[in-house]
């Protein structure tokens, strides 16, 4: 039962092979048993999940069911869930009970999808290893000494360890795709504006995007069908009609033009990872695609620009955590400044404080033009690079990460080493494009991820390409021993 993806569970529920209550109960029991070693959940929503499951079973019996009614999933703890603690991986929100649902959560609730729990994450989504969480690091199910990637490390580990069949996640610079690569999952980051940000706790508003971690492209398509759509509560949500993202899954790839950016195969890429990616590309050729070397000449600037823009936006987004209206507040503040400073210093972890400081610096008097404005111009350069590339090719492919998962604690000394983890994924967020990471091999029994980048609103095509690859290969069905 735990090997099933959401498409399979949906079929089984419809066929009456098991009830939503049965599978939900089974998952809750499995999480309690197995998650001690992984730490992938922050909050388990036992009571609510069972109530939702019973209601789902009733609705299904009455013929009043969405395709996913009764399917259990987990939500990254960055999405507000009414009446349930929503911590964003931070001490600052350890006591915060969200009084409302994020639109993404609401959409799943409306579809009758069950919330098993809230998954662990890097604090305020700032990290690439899930080591910055107030609730402790998450362990990679493939090897518990390794990180699962971040910031959606809890969601990735939970799906990989079969502690849920699918999970929501968010991606600001690679936070869905890199954990997908490290845990052997399909990770979809849709176009900026495709899914609502309402109720999704902000890290960097112009880059954050909700997406999915699943076991297959087909599952991702089913999840996106529920998540995507215009939300009048989010001014950056795009009012373009959604589509049935499963509709094109079976289209053949004959004639597909794939761009291979030389910059994503340059120095720093692990040789064995590269080999796996090259093998995957050959697989696409067999499916009828053609490969074309392309250049994204400014891609080396993306990490630099990102580490100005994201911290700048974050520095303002995180000013609201002041101990006045909700969240952590320091003991016995002696005056207002003391309230602010101690609340924020005690409530935020090191990496969050570091990024607030960097962002504050980049925006401060005298530095704005040299840092913030320059970074926005580089962002333009990067977007232009992609526009030029998409004039020649349909999609762009390369490795998601330069290497496989690394050891917990091995990269905590220098933040910059960690920042460079996202070297292949960050540019996609700066340009607002959709991207997907699919399993494409194993190196020393650790998953390798292939990143496929599409033009804006090409999710349907990306899912088609990923699905066709998954029909031809079985990397996505490989699972760790848990």
């Amino acid at each position: 039962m735990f090997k099933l993806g959401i498409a399979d569970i949906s079929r089984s529920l419809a066929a009456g092979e098991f009830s939503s209550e049965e599978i939900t109960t089974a998952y809750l029991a499995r999480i309690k048993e197995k998650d001690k070693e992984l730490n992938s959940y922050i909050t388990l929503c036992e009571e609510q999940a069972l109530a939702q499951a019973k209601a789902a079973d009733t609705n299904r019996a009455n013929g009043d069911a969405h395709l996913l009614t009764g399917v259990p999933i987990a939500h990254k703890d960055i999405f507000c869930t009414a009446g349930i603690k929503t911590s964003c991986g931070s001490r600052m929100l350890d006591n915060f009970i969200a009084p409302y649902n994020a639109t993404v959560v609401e959409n799943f609730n409306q579809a009758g999808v069950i919330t098993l729990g809230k998954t662990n994450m890097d604090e305020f989504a700032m990290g690439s290893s899930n080591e910055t969480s107030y609730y402790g690091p998450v362990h990679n199910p493939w090897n518990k000494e390794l990180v699962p990637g971040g910031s959606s490390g809890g969601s990735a580990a939970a799906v990989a360890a079969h502690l849920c069949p699918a999970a929501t996640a968010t991606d600001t610079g690679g936070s869905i795709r890199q954990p997908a690569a490290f845990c052997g999952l399909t990770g979809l980051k849709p176009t900026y504006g495709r899914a609502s940000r309402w109720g999704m706790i902000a890290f960097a508003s112009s880059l954050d995007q909700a997406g999915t971690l699943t076991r297959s492209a087909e599952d991702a398509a089913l999840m996106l069908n529920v998540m995507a759509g215009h939300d009048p509560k989010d001014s950056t949500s795009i009012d373009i009609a959604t589509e049935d993202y499963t509709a094109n899954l079976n289209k053949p790839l004959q004639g597909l033009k794939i761009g291979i950016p030389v910059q994503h195969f340059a120095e720093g890429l692990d040789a064995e990872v590269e080999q796996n990616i090259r093998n995957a590309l050959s697989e696409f050729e067999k499916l009828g695609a053609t490969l074309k070397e392309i250049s994204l000449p400014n891609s080396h600037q993306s990490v630099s620009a990102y580490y100005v823009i994201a911290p700048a936006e974050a520095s303002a987004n995180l000013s609201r955590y002041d101990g006045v209206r909700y969240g952590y507040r320091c003991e016995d503040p002696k005056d207002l400044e003391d309230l602010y400073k101690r609340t924020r210093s005690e409530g935020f972890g090191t990496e969050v404080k570091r990024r607030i400081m960097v962002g504050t610096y980049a925006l401060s008097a005298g530095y704005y033009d040299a840092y913030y404005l320059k970074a926005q111009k580089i962002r333009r350069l990067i977007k232009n690079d992609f526009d030029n590339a998409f004039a020649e090719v349909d999609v762009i492919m390369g490795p998601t990460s330069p290497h496989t998962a690394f050891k917990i604690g091995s990269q905590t000394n220098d933040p910059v080493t960690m920042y460079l983890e996202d070297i292949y994924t960050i540019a996609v967020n700066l340009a607002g494009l959709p991207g997907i990471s699919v399993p494409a091999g194993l190196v020393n029994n650790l998953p390798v991820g292939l990143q496929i980048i599409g033009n804006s609103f090409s999710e349907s095509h990306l899912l088609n390409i990923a699905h066709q690859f998954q029909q031809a290969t079985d990397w996505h069905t490989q699972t760790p021993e848990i």
Partner: protein
Amino acid sequence: MEWETVIGLEVHVQLATNSKLFSGSSIEFGAEPNTQASIYDLALPGTLPVLNKEALKMAVKFGLAVDAEIGMKSVFDRKNYFYPDLPKGYQTSQLDFPTVGKGSLDVTLQDGSIKTIGITRAHMEEDAGKSLHEDFHGETGIDLNRAGTPLLEIVSEPEIRSAGEAVAYLKKLHSLILYLGISDGDMSKGNMRCDANVSVRPKGETEFGTRAEIKNINSFKFVEKAINIEVERQIDLLEDGGRVVQETRLYDSEKNETRSMRSKEVANDYRYFPEPDLLPIIIDQAYIEEIRTTLPELPDAKRQRFIDQYKLSEYDALVLANDLTTASYFEDVVAVCGNAKLSANWVSVDLQAYLNEAEIPISESPVTPELLGGLINKITDNTISSKIAKTVFEAMLAGEGDAEKIIKTKGLKQVTDSGAIEAMVEAVIANNPEQVEQYRSGKEKVFGFFVGQIMKDSKGKANPAQVNQILKDKLSN
């Protein structure tokens, strides 16, 4: 040394929308604390802004009314600072790309001359909440009902040269926003607030002196006083060899002084950057033209029309057109009676005197335009004299009914029967032979005596014109 004052004003006007700038909370005044503070207003994690359509319309409307460049692309920015009445830790405002750019306002000064004062810009922004300092065991209570209320900040060029000009500019602005219906302009509720940037320089100097910003000025009277006292302070300082410091000062109306607000000077590094939760506002010419069609007749145009259409004097036209309600009242009176000159006099003199004394706005006047027009009709059709009309007006204010009814019950109808007047004239002539003799021997001043006697006898009801005519005839015989 002779000094010149340089003033620039920043006026915050609360826009008369139903809901807040970026949330669906009510902005009604006087609600229980924090009952109009939604999850967005409280800056709960994950909440996002969506701009109020009306606020944008009102900003553009104002821009068109002051002949300003309208930003075809305007951008909201975050202005970052920590304060408990600012829940997000930043104020959403507009810096480099405001909705309203350069414009101007014609202001009538005390001597009747007109001065054009440049408007630098006007931008939309959110208001902050309120801090309450009483009754919380030495702590401060925060009410966020006002947080997020839409404001239009209107910034003038430093072209104002005296406190009097500043007041004239403010009054004109006040008149304009009421005309446009974009704010109630109620200064007592803080719905129109003014900060003044004040500096002085030796007359003839072209460089600006160092300015101080005076905050918290909440009436026309205080604007004048605060500026005057600040100018005095700066001149004294400079003449004593001191320097003016660029700073924010608070006007204390009780002590009539400005004092430094050092607490606000710390960390004045606002780190503005484009609000990433909002895309730019892009508007087209069609949108602007659509709003232009909704513009009402503005004060200057109305004043000119009053002069052209009703042949009013410059002064009467200015007084009447300045306030929209007064102007409409006046035109309603004219519609009833058709006599513009008398209508203007009655509205701007008699009615205004009463309203000033009673301290009520014209909208609450017990005498409606209908009633006043009816009264004027009774003057023009000779039913009563102008003098008797004042008595009728008094009765109207007391709620005794319309002119017709009051004249009837009080028996105030003018005597216009020439036979009756002749009889009164003859009686007065017969009873005062001495005065008749004086008049006939050339002492024409005595004429007034006869008129007075007749009016006294008739209790003021004799038609004065008829009395004059008949008296003249009889005396010259």
